[in-house]
C-alpha cells in the first residue's frame, strides 16, 4: 500500500438537487424546436442535455439528450436523432457552445432534408421546454486524504457525483472536474487526476462512474491487484 499523504486542502462534498421549472414553451415541429432552442435560457438547454442522465442514469449510454429522443420518437427523424445523440457533449465546456452545436446540427439537417419541416408531433407529444433550477448544498462529508475520499465516494448520492463531475465541468465552465482538480492540486497526483479527467462521463451510468473512479483511486492506494 502506498503511503497516504494528507491533502493540502480537504475536499468538501457538495450535492446538487434540482427542481424543474416549466417554461410554457412547446414545439410541435423541427422549425419550432430550432427557433426555441435559440432563445431559451441556458438552464433549459442544460436540463434537456443533462437531466436525462440523472433521470435515466441506468439506461445510459442510451440517447443522452431529450432533443435526440424527441426528434426520433415523436417526429420519426431517426437520422437526426442519431446525429443529436452522438454530439460529443464532453467536448463542449460551455452550455453556449453546446447549444450552438445542437442548433447547427438541426439547421444542417433541415437544409438537406426540407421535407422534415413538414412533420409535426401528435397532440400531447409536443416538446415542452423545461429548465432546471439547481440548489447547491454542502454535505456533511469532508475528505482529508484519498482513503477517506473513496470511503465517502462509496456512500454519497449520485446527485453529489453528478455535481462534482458534470456541474463543475460544464455549467460552471470549468475545464476539469472537481475530483481531478483536488487530486492534482491538493493530493499532488497528476497522473491519477488525468486518469479520472479523461473519462467520458456521458457514456457511463452514474453508478458505473462511481465504481470506476473508486477503482482508479484504490488501485493507486492498494496496488494493481486490488
Amino acid at each position, binding site marked *: 500500500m502506498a503511503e497516504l499523504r494528507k491533502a493540502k486542502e480537504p475536499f468538501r462534498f457538495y450535492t446538487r438537487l434540482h427542481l424543474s421549472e416549466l417554461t410554457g414553451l412547446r414545439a410541435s415541429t423541427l422549425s419550432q424546436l430550432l427557433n426555441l432552442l435559440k432563445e431559451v435560457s441556458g438552464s433549459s438547454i442544460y436540463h434537456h442535455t443533462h437531466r436525462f442522465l440523472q433521470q435515466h442514469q441506468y439506461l445510459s449510454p442510451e440517447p443522452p439528450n431529450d432533443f435526440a429522443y424527441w426528434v426520433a420518437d415523436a417526429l420519426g427523424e431517426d437520422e437526426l436523432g442519431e446525429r443529436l445523440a452522438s454530439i460529443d457533449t464532453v467536448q463542449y465546456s460551455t452550455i453556449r457552445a453546446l447549444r450552438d452545436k445542437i442548433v447547427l446540427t438541426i439547421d444542417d439537417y433541415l437544409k438537406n432534408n426540407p421535407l422534415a419541416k413538414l412533420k409535426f408531433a401528435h397532440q400531447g407529444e409536443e416538446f415542452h421546454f423545461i429548465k432546471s433550477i439547481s440548489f447547491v448544498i454542502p454535505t456533511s462529508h469532508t475528505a482529508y486524504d484519498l482513503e477517506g475520499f473513496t470511503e465517502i465516494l462509496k456512500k454519497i*448520492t449520485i446527485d453529489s457525483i453528478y455535481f462534482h463531475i458534470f456541474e463543475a465541468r460544464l455549467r460552471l465552465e470549468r475545464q476539469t472536474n472537481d475530483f481531478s482538480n483536488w487530486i492534482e492540486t491538493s493530493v499532488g497526483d497528476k497522473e491519477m487526476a488525468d486518469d479520472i479527467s479523461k473519462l467520458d462521463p456521458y457514456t457511463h451510468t452514474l453508478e458505473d462512474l462511481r465504481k470506476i473512479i473508486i477503482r482508479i483511486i484504490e488501485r493507486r492506494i492498494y496496488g494493481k491487484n486490488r
Partner: protein
Amino acid sequence: MVKIDNYISIVDQSVIDDLKLLAEKLKGKVIQQINSTSVGGGVAEILNRVVPLLKELGVDTRWDLIKGGEQFFEVTKKFHNALHGRPQDLTQHDFDIFLETSQKNIEEVNIYGDILFIHDPQPIALIKKKSENKWIWRCHIDLSNPHPKVWNFLKDFIMNYDSAVFSAPGFSQKLPIRQFLISPSIDPLSEKNKELPQETIDSVLKKYNISQDKPIITQISRFDRLKDPLGVIEAYLQVKKYINCQLILAGGTATDDPEGLKVFAEVKEKAKLDQDIHILLLAHNDIEINALQRASTVIVQKSIKEGFGLTVAEALWKAKPVVASNVGGIPLQIKHKYSGLLCHSIEGAAFAIKQLLNSPEYAKKLGENGKEHIKNNFLLTRHLRDYMLLFLSLYHKEDIVYL
C-alpha cells in the same frame, strides 16, 4: 407509523441525509397545506403521508381543510371534469355557489403559514387573504385541454399566487407566475406497494379463482370510461386468439357515481364473452391490489385521459412489464421500449401485450428498467425533496441557488 429512516433500506442513507439537509434550510418557516378533504382521493392520500414525514424532518407543516356543502362539491366536481376537457353544463348559478362558499371560507379559515400550499380548485379563492406570505397553487388535475370558461375563471385567482405546480409538462398553461413540474409519487412502504410473501399472493389468487397456470394480464383502475375498461377487454380478446391467457380488471367504483355503475354493468356484460375474464370490485383493499399486481404477467393501463397514472408507477415498482397509453403523466414514467411499452389504440395495446407475453426476457428487462426508473424518480422521498426545494424556490429567483 412509518418513519423517515424506514426508507433508508430502499433509497440509501445518503438520500435521506439530503432530505435532512434541506429540512434544515427551512427551519423557522411554517408550511400550511390546505385542501378540501382529509380522507379519500389522491390528494388526501399523499398529504396523509407527506405531512407527518415533513414534520419528522423538522419542517413545521400543518394541514387545514376548507368547508363546503353538497352543492359546492357538486360544482367543484363539474370544475374538475371541465378541466379534464369534458363538456359540462355550468351556469352562472354554479359559479355563484362556488364564490359564496369560498367567501365563507375566506372569512373562517385561519391563515397563519409563511408558505401557503393550496391544493386543487376547491380552496383556490383563499388567495384573497394573501399578505406578506408566499402562496403556491398545486394542481393535481390533467390540464392539457381545459374547458376555457372554467380555466379563465380559475386563472384570475391563480395569477395572484407566487407559483403554480403541475404534474406533467403538458399541463402547464400560459401564466405570468412561475410554474414547476412536480410529479406525484408512490410510497414503497404502503400496503399497496410493500413486498408481500408468496403465500399472501397465492391466497388472493385462490380467493378470486384465478389460475396460476396461464399468463395474467391486469388493469387496476376504477370502472370509469376514462380508464377504458371495455377497450382493455377488446385488446385482451385480440391477444387471446393467439395466446391462452386471462384478464383481471380490478378496482372500485363510487356508489354515488351513476356513470361508474353504468360502466361497471357494461364491463360485466362484455366479460361474459370469455370465462377467463375476472372482474373484481376491490375498493380500498390495498393488500389485494398489491397481490394482484405482483401475480400479473403484464400490467395494462389503457387510459384515455390520466392525471398522472400512479397505477403505472405501482406496477413498475413491482418490476412488471407495462403496456400503457401515451397520455397524461404516463410518458414520464415509461420511455417507450426502455421501461415499458406505450400505445395509442386497442390494436396497439394488443400487439404490445403479445410482444411481452412472447418475449419474457424482453419483458423482464423492461420491468427491471421500470423499477429503477421509479426508484430514482417517483418514490415518496423524491416528492418530499421536490416539495422542500419548491418551498426554498419561493425565496430565490436565480437559476443556480447556493444554500
